[in-house]
């Protein structure tokens, strides 16, 4: 497949129970940072774009404080895996699995994303 050069905007989509759900344009995201998005059922997700152009999504709620802020944390990678550090108390979450790297007991929901 060749990428059609005339197609300027790429969209970021999230897989939900009832299928793929379009969130925003790729250009709405800043590489190395996140943004929050609201899902139809009222849930909030935190969407991230890394340096290499990959997107990730996890629940936006920080389980340690209850605040909906994970999208505003700093992105990083540890042992080759991407994570976000909560802006409040700095716990890190794996962006692919939602697993908390600083507390084995805690895992939050991770979503599958795609851009097209």
């Amino acid at each position, binding site marked *: 497949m060749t990428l059609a050069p005339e197609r300027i905007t790429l969209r970021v989509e999230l897989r939900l129970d009832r299928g793929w759900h379009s969130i925003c344009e790729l250009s709405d995201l800043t590489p190395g940072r996140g943004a929050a998005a609201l899902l*139809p059922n009222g849930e909030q997700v935190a969407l991230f774009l890394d340096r290499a152009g990959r997107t990730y999504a996890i629940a936006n709620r920080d389980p340690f404080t209850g605040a909906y802020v994970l999208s505003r944390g700093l992105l990083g990678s540890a042992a080759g895996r991407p994570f976000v550090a909560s802006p409040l108390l700095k716990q890190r979450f794996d962006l692919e699995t939602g697993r908390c790297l600083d507390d084995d007991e805690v895992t939050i929901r991770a979503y599958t994303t795609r851009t097209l």
Partner: protein
Amino acid sequence: MTGNAQRIVLIGHGMVGQRFLEALAERGLTRTHRVTVLAEEPRPAYDRVQLTSYFSGTSPDELSVTPEGFLDEHGIELHLNDPVVAIDRETRRVTTESGVTHPYDTLVLATGSYPFVPPVPGKDADGCFVYRTIEDLLAIEEYAKKHATTGTVVGGGLLGLEAAGALQGLGLDTHIVEFAPRLMPVQVDEGGGSALRRTITGMGLEVHTGVGGKEIKTDADGAVRAMALSDDSEIATDLVVFSAGVRPRDQLARDAGLDVGERGGVAVDEQCRTTNDPAVFAIGECAQAADGRVYGLVAPGYEMAETAAKAIAAEDGEACDGFSGADLSTKLKLLGVGVASFGDAHGAADDCLDVVYSDSRAGIYKKLVVAPDGTLLGGVLVGDTDSYGLLRPLTGSVPPVSPEQLVLPAGAGAPAALGPSALPDEAVICNCHNVTKGSIRGAVTDHECTTVPEVKKCTKAGSGCGSCVKVLTTLVNDELEAQGVTIDKGLCGCFTYTRAELYEIVRTLRITSYAALLDSHGREEAKRSDGCEVCKPTVASIIASLAPTIGAEGYVLDGEQAALQDTNDHFLANMQKNGSYSIVPRIPGGEITPEKLIVIGEVARDFGLYTKITGGQRIDLFGARVDQLPQIWGRLVDAGFESGHAYGKALRTVKSCVGWTWCRYGVQDSVKMAIQLELRYRGLRSPHKLKSAVSGCARECAEAQSKDFGVIATAGGWNLYVGGNGGATPRHADLLAQDLSDAELVRLIDRFLMFYIRTADRLERTSVWLERIEGGLDHVRDVVVHDSLGLCDELEALMADHVANYRDEWAETLADPDRLRRFVSFVNAPGTPDPTVQFVPERDQVKPDLNLLQIRPLDASEAALDNALEGASAR
């Protein structure tokens, strides 16, 4: 464990008792014996030595020295809150207050001491306390809060000074009454006592020496009102803490017919066995050791705990050496003043000679006691105890350099040559746990420890009072280096360089992008990765500090820089616990016109924000949603406000006092100078936040000596102080230069700040930096005042660049629609506010509704939300 296993009963679960249990466990005795602990206090053993840290925020739980799960794991039974009231040695049983009896085969007393309360009339009045247990502290705190503004500590020894520090920390006007002619009479000599007194008086405590308390006077309700002294003077006081020494708790032993020493203490032999009953041991502060002394320090207690455990094991075969006495060296930080004494501190040996260095202005006193042949016998250090870690282990030997050089401060001719490497292997490095240099080296060579925490765990060194950690770290690093292991001093998992090195790389190579820096200078495994939350903001800050000089964009949220900034910088506001933000406009010097005050009031009212006057002489507005920030700042910028950088590692505020314009004492215009300095350094990104203040005279109403750079007016100009700090570890600033003109002052601050930014570590305040940097204050003075490195022109030029290129971040953000795009709650629903950010009323204003955060969002009707999202989710 079998039903007829040998029973060990321990009375008292204090520091030494716990150490004894650990020693039993290490020898496997908890498997072969049934161990029961009977304790009087309501909580398991905790760190009494660090007791006072409760007042600086350490919780009782954090003070615990009983590792979680330890007792269960070793099958040790602990009964709290039920003291032993009788020992029957005939039948080998002890009885507790609640009437339970416990049989023993071996009994160990570790009952510690009780505080001695002198028999002054009124000593039992409401408001009289002792200072020994967590419960004592809780009671003092509660009483002080409700009933006291003034407090008096009876006793000017080690514990008395700690108690006095605690009272002062509780906000009480504090007096210390000491019967001896000087403070800390046991530890320090006259010279040291007077250096200590000067410093402590300088902190605002009232010291009364050479007098005793005669009577405690009470009011009609029986509460303390005053204390009459032996010289017939009187101190008005609402609270009294007795800290006049401790006495061994040996009553139980006396009642049971065990021998006690003349001045108290259960008499024991070198194995810590009581002299008249081989089935009973006594350890710690309740025991009189074989050398006839009762040790009031924890280190000898630990040694006794080990000895007793060994002796019990020896019954099963292990050979053991005994405890015959211990070193009484101590190093303490009392009220922020370092005090140390070691060896023969009072020069009791025949023919010994003193070498003394004393600087009363700086509150420093150092004395070494040497034998005629040059052997170091002991010493006293007050005000500057840095050399303690080296001097104590050298005691008993002839030091490699002359004693004069050992007491001189760095920079005044003292050679730096003497490091821990000069110490012999048998030198004891950690006094608390009796660990020698040899064992520390062994931990690295034989046990393959490669970090300080590993060595701590392996040898226990450094896990007591902590005073040896500095020397320990040097030794471990030296040993690792000798082994060819390179020590990783890198900033984080992504860089092997320190912050200061990265600063130099960015400056000299003019690297303006984080990605470029990571890919060219990062660790192999981190190259082309996303970096991490440690190095990203650090590099962002370096680039921002150097922006005009290296040609980077000055706006911190441009391009790649946006991705690097901490959350707060990213939104130019401080995130609060519910995800809302606070807004702090700059109010230079704390001076503000009525019109501007009105604007702040109107904005807060219109957006429903909570307002509070901050500790930095300005106003904080709390509770803005991220999407409200631009509207709020729009109003503020229009009214002439700019960012206060409360979110950045940057200049915060320059506080001022009203100064000579209004104040009858003022000698210079402190408000004008504060405003000038705040405007000059605003927006300057640095390794940590920077705070400043300007006082109009020596009364110091602006608290300049607690600031990173503080200025105090003199008749002849300005005095500049640097390296002050409030916060958790307060530090008084040091005088850098005196009687400066306006221009000289600004020039010196320019150089000082730029030198700090260049050489400090990430998140290192100037106070910590000044203590860490080699050569300390003298070196910094050489560099910024005397230009010893020839750097000053460059430092000034860097600051000139910063000043010339400063632009207000909020004005710039508002002027650019692209930059405003990030200020939305949801990327797919830009107009929708975050429903989880809600507030509830509190004292006529609002506060975050945290209940909302504890529950998941309500399942809103999908249709309604689909509507709200219309457009955004169209496929």
